[in-house]
């Protein structure tokens, strides 16, 4: 792998993504955990830029960092018994062994050509743009039905979240 802008970006975003993820699962203070989560999600957004999907990177920053991470921050603040939990982990050793074994199996699966030969080293020159995505989302031969179903799902989730979290005594 020669050293150019893309590979340097890849290394930087790898540090962001994996470092943030390790921070999420190891930090004692959950508020710091949400900050680590934002770092990790930002690294994933960087991967989307490297993979020439800038729209997804923007959506990742808006939806994940802007909405979900803030929502988790609110949940952390609203559930302030966090300081009461003295033990961070349960089943620490089995979980560690299990996830390490899973990682090694997955790594073997992606580096060895077990599931068919590797794709060619070069990537296609032509890549679909955001305009193509927008056209495909409302094309009746494309993805218009899942698009509408996603809208219904979001509405249902919003109503459900409000209904569940509503305080009946208030």
């Amino acid at each position: 792998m020669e050293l150019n802008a893309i590979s340097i970006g890849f290394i930087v975003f790898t540090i962001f993504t994996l470092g943030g993820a390790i921070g999420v699962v190891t930090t004692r203070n959950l508020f710091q955990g949400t900050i680590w989560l934002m770092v990790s999600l930002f690294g994933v957004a960087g991967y989307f830029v490297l993979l020439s999907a800038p729209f997804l990177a923007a959506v990742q920053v808006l939806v994940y960092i802007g909405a979900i991470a803030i929502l988790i921050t609110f949940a952390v603040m609203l559930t302030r018994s966090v300081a009461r939990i003295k033990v961070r982990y349960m089943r620490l050793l089995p979980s560690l062994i299990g996830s390490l074994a899973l990682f090694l199996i997955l790594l073997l699966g992606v580096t060895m050509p077990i599931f068919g030969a590797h794709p060619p080293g070069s990537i296609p020159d032509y890549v679909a743009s955001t305009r193509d995505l927008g056209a495909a989302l409302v094309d009746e031969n494309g993805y218009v039905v899942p698009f509408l179903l996603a809208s219904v799902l979001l509405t249902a989730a919003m109503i459900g979240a409000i209904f569940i979290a509503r305080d009946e005594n208030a």
Partner: protein
Amino acid sequence: MVPLWMYLAVAAALFAIGVFGVLSRRNAVAILMSVELMLNAVNINLVAFWRYSETGTDLLLNGYVFTAFVLIVAAAEAAVGLAIIITVYRNRRSVIPEEARALKG
């Protein structure tokens, strides 16, 4: 150019870290954050396979669109999950999943 397997290896590491968090953390909010990490690992895989696949002449957008839908479902899951956590906390003063056992037979 970064080869495909490096993206897949990073996604595998991210997924394994998320699995570790889900299995080991005691706080329900931390478990939900680990689930978000796993969803992001899947998203990296989807976009990487989409980018590296040979499209030929016609446009293939399956990976791209699938990633967008995973984002939508993740948003819905986070909203409902956090609402459930807050309700359980209000009723039981606890965010530890093991202590929410009112339905246990």
